[in-house]
């Protein structure tokens, strides 16, 4: 069995009612399991951009892309390779606030260049932005101090350089490597 890798897929879709359902319904039907999905506006009002993070083997990756391409409202699908992509995620983490640990939490916030956005006697809420692995590390660090509640946005990602996803050409074939 091929081993599972994490990968990020960027999808341009028509900015229309019901398109997200078409995409997610296909995932269910074909048995793809997603780690995170974000959707939002793009440089063009015609399109929305969906960024999907998931783990799977090469087969899952290839099938997911090809099944996405078949959906009529999907205009472009590309895998964002690790080295070529700029990835960001935002998390809000509500942490217990008490005088014994406050100093440690605040120094971690500073080291991670996070921001305290809410502060009460018994909790503080931290906003952190960055590469998902940085957020993972921060969350792991905060667990001993007591995470009350948290949420993550999922990844948004763009390719490095001046190219755009929509301008990329697709090949007409697949040759076994």
């Amino acid at each position, binding site marked *: 069995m091929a081993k599972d890798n994490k990968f990020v897929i960027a999808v341009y879709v028509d900015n229309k009612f019901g398109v997200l359902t078409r995409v997610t319904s296909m995932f269910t*039907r074909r048995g793809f399991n997603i780690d995170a999905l974000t959707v939002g506006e793009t440089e063009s009002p015609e399109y929305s951009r969906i960024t999907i993070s998931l783990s799977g083997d090469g087969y899952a990756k290839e099938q997911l892309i*090809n099944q996405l391409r*078949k959906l009529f409202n999907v205009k472009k699908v590309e895998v964002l390779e690790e080295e070529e992509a700029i990835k960001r995620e935002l998390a809000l983490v509500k942490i217990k606030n008490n005088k014994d640990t406050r100093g440690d939490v605040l120094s971690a916030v500073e080291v991670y260049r996070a921001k305290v956005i809410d502060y009460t006697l018994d909790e503080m809420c931290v906003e952190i932005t960055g590469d998902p692995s940085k957020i993972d590390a921060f969350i792991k660090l905060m667990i001993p101090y007591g995470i009350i509640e948290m949420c993550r946005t999922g990844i948004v990602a763009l390719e490095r350089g001046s190219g755009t996803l929509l301008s990329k050409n697709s090949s*007409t*074939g697949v*040759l076994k490597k």
Partner: protein
Amino acid sequence: MKLTGAEIIIRTLIEQGTTDVFGYPGGQVINIYDALYKYKDEINHILTAHEQGAAHAADGYSRATGKVGVCIATSGPGATNLVTGIATAMLDSIPMVAVTGNVPCSLIGKDSFQEIDITGITLPITKHNYFVNRIEDLAPSIREAFQIAKSGRPGPVLIDVPKDVQVATYEYEPQPIVPKIPLPKADEELIEEAVKLISESKRPYIYIGGGAAGLGMGKDIIDLANKIDACIGCSFMGLSAVPDGCDRFLGMQGMHGHFASSMAQKHADLIIGVGVRFSDRATGNVAKFAKGTKILQLDPDFAEINKNVNVDLGIVADVYDSFTRIAKKVEESKKPEWVARVESLKEKEEAIAAKAAKMAGDRMTPKQVFDVINKYKLPRTIITTDVGQHQMWAAQYSKFDTTRRFVSSGGLGTMGFGLGAAMGARVATNDPTILITGDGSFGMNLNELATAVTYNIPLVIVLANNGVLGMVRQWQNLFFGKRFSNTVLERKTDFVKLAEAFGAVGMRANTIGEFEEAFKKALTINGPVVIDTLIDKDEFVLPMLPPGGSIDDIIVEKGGDNNG
């Protein structure tokens, strides 16, 4: 000119080349039916007994011609009754447009009477669908639906139109028939790669599917086979793409495929797949399928490359263009060893058939029934089927003189498909149409006999009546210790009287002689005829690959010894 939404629907259907529609009226499509009344000289509506029959008829219409079949149903139950028909078309990539009415926009989402989210329900079984809540989107959506249905890998499209949109008025201007969206042409280097694969092959097997059948590529395929000394086999959906009489054609391969065809595929060193998706029924256990054989696959759908089997080269482009470019570039070559080997497989298949015929004794066998059909059937006859043993016998034994002559539910395997589809095929082509069905399948949608009688649609219905659900019984026989759970019908239905009650002609055949007489007579009758053909309940469909097995496990005769 300003027209109502309902009129726009009908005018746009006519504009897109629709001459016949199948459907059933209801509360939320009264306006559409009013428009049909107005335009009845330009578009023919066939009222079926049930919406499922309408969907299958539209599907059969499309399979027999390549035109986009159209069906209409009302909201709620009307729409849900289409679902099996739409799914059937989806799994076999059949271009079809289904129009449904829905409750007015103001009542949407309120669980109103006969309200159902049909676009939600059909999301996974349509190529695309529309909920048209603005009249300005109506005609463009219908045109786009036709374009999507017939372009690339075809498929069904549903358009749901709320009643208020049907009532509203809007500007309508007729437009030409929308063209198919052209597929890309394959990169030259891929064509070169394919030519190289073929040149290196000593034992080529051209494997054609529904895609090749849909494109009418029979002659091109035979030409390439002759050029490179290849043999030709097909998937279930590829039947009738290559007309019978071509000695390179070995017939269907796979779970119930011809021995020689499946074996030649196993022994080949290159499979040239044309518009075929390597379904599980065709490959058996994929882990053991085509081991050591190279695969070249031409298909319009990217997702079919490496989906079921790993291929050496997949070309995702205009299949006809890729195929003809490859065929032109390939050099002629003779492969006498391969030809001789294929010949010996054919001889072995004939020997197996001769032995089976001898063992059958006096009883009427399915093979004999098809021999009679093949002997007397008229030119251009379309064979439609339901699903089960009779379907596989039809796939194995039917002879076809031209393309689009086999109309059967392959991917979804829909029992009850046949009668509706046969009507659709006959209405579309006016060519002689035979329905091969079983007592199980026929029981599912025999209500459409009323439609066939009302519209006097000539059909010869050969009902292979064995009193059991034969295919499941065969599995129970072979793999479930003969525990015949719920497959013995023990019904008291008299199909001759039933046919007569509907106003059709009914006949019964107990022996092959009686069948021959009945069939000859049926061909002279201008209307639907049911021939209740009594066959043994323990006939098997052979060969058979057992579930999870590969070609090495092929069962070729009763008793189940391995002759592979």
